[in-house]
């Protein structure tokens, strides 16, 4: 009997210059990562004794996991809050989240001094370490995401028994995913709470775990909009503007809560004093608060902007940039230590990993029943 791959076959979506470019950049980035593996962190990065964490931790790891929060948020909206109308975006959102966490794991393999010992987290325990908790949550959540994504694969293969099995445990699985996400999204903030002497007071707060959790929900939803828009454009189907506009109605509440907490915190802790100084910290803080919180909040609150293609994309973009800025400011720019400019190789690996994420998404769309079949007009014989 010939191997039966069922519905796993190459779908003839157009291969544009964009994805070709991403393949090349992704391959170059992975080559640099391989070089880092061969020669070590010292020669390939600008990290030093007084700057142990660079862009791989602040951008790829902290911001990357934050942006992947859409998966658990949408899972909660559809399966717990039972808002079935949002079902059409579940599949691609789960995939985006799954890829986001794979990238975070790959980032660790680049950043850890002993990447081959990453499994030590399983055999050596230190329940006092925030990183221990994050490691465990991410490992478990990756498993949950794989299972949440697996129906797409089983369905394509026409494997009835595994499909029924996953469906049977779907609700507990979704619950586990939400609990694990709540834990590790906030614990990324907890990770920084033990550094009161290292982080600038404008970014250090005892509410960091709460901030990290709330901002991840808003930016994760922004990422859902961003991904939907680019998928629709790339694979030639309809952009679900209506649906996303209804979904993102919630963002102003989330960002509003975040903003109120942040401002209240500034006043209570008297740290607004630092804003009265004219320096880089107060400047970037204002940019982050206004550009990354207030502007996307107002944009999503405005039905006219939210219901326009351009408006919702820009609003989502601002929300995402807000989170990225926050993580980089907290864990890198305003983190006490030696002067640091990322080495070209660090940037190359960062960009390469991002490209790898897009390549994985693209491959899933091409080989699995992710979206409606490509329309005749967009089909191009390879």
């Amino acid at each position: 009997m010939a191997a039966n791959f069922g519905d796993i076959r190459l779908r003839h979506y157009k291969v544009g210059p964009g994805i070709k470019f991403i393949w090349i950049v992704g391959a170059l980035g992975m080559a640099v990562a391989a070089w880092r593996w061969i020669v070590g962190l010292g020669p390939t990065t600008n990290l030093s004794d007084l700057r142990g964490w660079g862009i791989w931790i602040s951008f790829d790891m902290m911001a990357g996991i934050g942006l992947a929060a859409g998966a658990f948020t949408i899972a909660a909206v559809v399966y717990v809050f039972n808002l079935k109308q949002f079902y059409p975006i579940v599949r691609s959102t789960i995939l985006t989240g799954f890829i986001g966490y794979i990238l975070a794991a790959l980032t660790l393999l680049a950043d850890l001094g002993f990447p081959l010992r990453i499994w030590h987290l399983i055999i050596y325990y230190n329940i006092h370490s925030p990183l221990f908790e994050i490691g465990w949550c991410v490992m478990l959540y990756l498993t949950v995401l794989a299972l949440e994504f697996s129906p797409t694969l089983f369905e394509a293969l026409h494997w009835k028994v595994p499909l029924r099995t996953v469906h049977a445990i779907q609700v507990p699985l979704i619950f586990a995913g939400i609990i694990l996400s709540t834990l590790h999204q906030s614990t990324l903030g907890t990770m920084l709470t033990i550094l009161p002497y290292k982080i600038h007071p404008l970014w250090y707060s005892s509410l960091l775990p709460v901030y990290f959790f709330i901002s991840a929900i808003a930016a994760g939803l922004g990422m859902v909009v961003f991904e939907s828009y680019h998928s629709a454009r790339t694979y030639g189907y309809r952009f679900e503007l209506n649906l996303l506009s209804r979904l993102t109605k919630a963002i102003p509440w989330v960002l509003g809560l975040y903003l109120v907490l942040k401002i209240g915190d500034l006043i209570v802790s008297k740290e607004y004093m630092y804003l009265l100084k004219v320096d880089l910290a107060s400047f970037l803080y204002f940019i982050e608060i206004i550009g990354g919180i207030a502007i996307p909040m107002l944009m999503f609150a405005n039905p006219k902007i939210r219901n326009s293609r351009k408006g919702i994309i820009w609003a989502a973009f601002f929300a995402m940039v807000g989170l990225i800025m926050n993580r980089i400011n907290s864990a890198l720019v305003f983190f006490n230590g030696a002067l640091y400019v990322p080495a070209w190789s660090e940037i190359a690996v960062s960009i390469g990993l991002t490209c790898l994420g897009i390549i994985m998404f693209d491959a899933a769309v091409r080989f699995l029943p992710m979206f409606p079949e490509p329309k005749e007009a967009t089909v191009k014989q390879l």
Partner: protein
Amino acid sequence: MSINRRDFLKTAGAGLGGLALTEVPIPQVKNLINQAAAETQASMLYDATKCVGCKACQVACKERSNLPPTTDLEGIWEAPTDLNADTWTLIKLYDGEEGTSFVKANCMHCIEPACTSVCPVAALEKTDAGPVVYHAERCIGCRYCMAACPFSIPKAQWYSNLPKIQKCDFCADRLANGEQPACADACPTGAIGFGTRKDMLAVAKGRIEDTERYVDYVYGEKEVGGTDVLYITGVNPLLLGLPELNERPLPEVDWPYLNAVPWVVGIVGAFLTGTYFYTHRNDDGKEVHDGG
């Protein structure tokens, strides 16, 4: 009967439906030991006024741990300006407004170290005897210890592709054999005292009382909950590169959040279950399935 703040919080917490986050019944970790136990830990007292800057301690440290010299590109030895993976202790000189003073940099061996508490694989360990030691075979190289240490002591072997974390280990092996640390042993002027923490504190306070030349402050007595390495100096210790820190042990800062994990699981789980049954109360029994 007086009621202290902690008891008040406990009672208040119980009143709030048992939500006192500090009272979650999971085991306390080892490094949250009580201060009394620290009295008998090994301790070093560096007396800056007795130090002549001969660097015999640096040499002894390198010899004992087989550390290579830090050389420049042409292979010439140069005194490093800061601690690094191969320099676990270093004598520096302060020469400024308040006069001059030598100062010795090395791991402070905190009573409640931040490094041991953040290490996800427990590669750093605070031993009962006092030294904070490193188990290289466990280390995954995340460098959280470097970020968390308020004294920025742990250093990485950046030159290696198996970059171990390196720092002073208080000569834990020598201590186990009843010997002094190599640096204290080598010091010709008695600037590095060695004994139990209780004794070293008494010596430090005695010297400050007896002579005029000291600043009336034992650095390390209270900083981040106390350290096993203590300093008495002739100039303000904050001018000698010792950071200004408050008395709260760092592991106690993030512990309440981690301690709250079981509560978060319970509360989020209950919320999800409640919401699920509420939103599905009129369900036709048909689930939306991913893929179905």
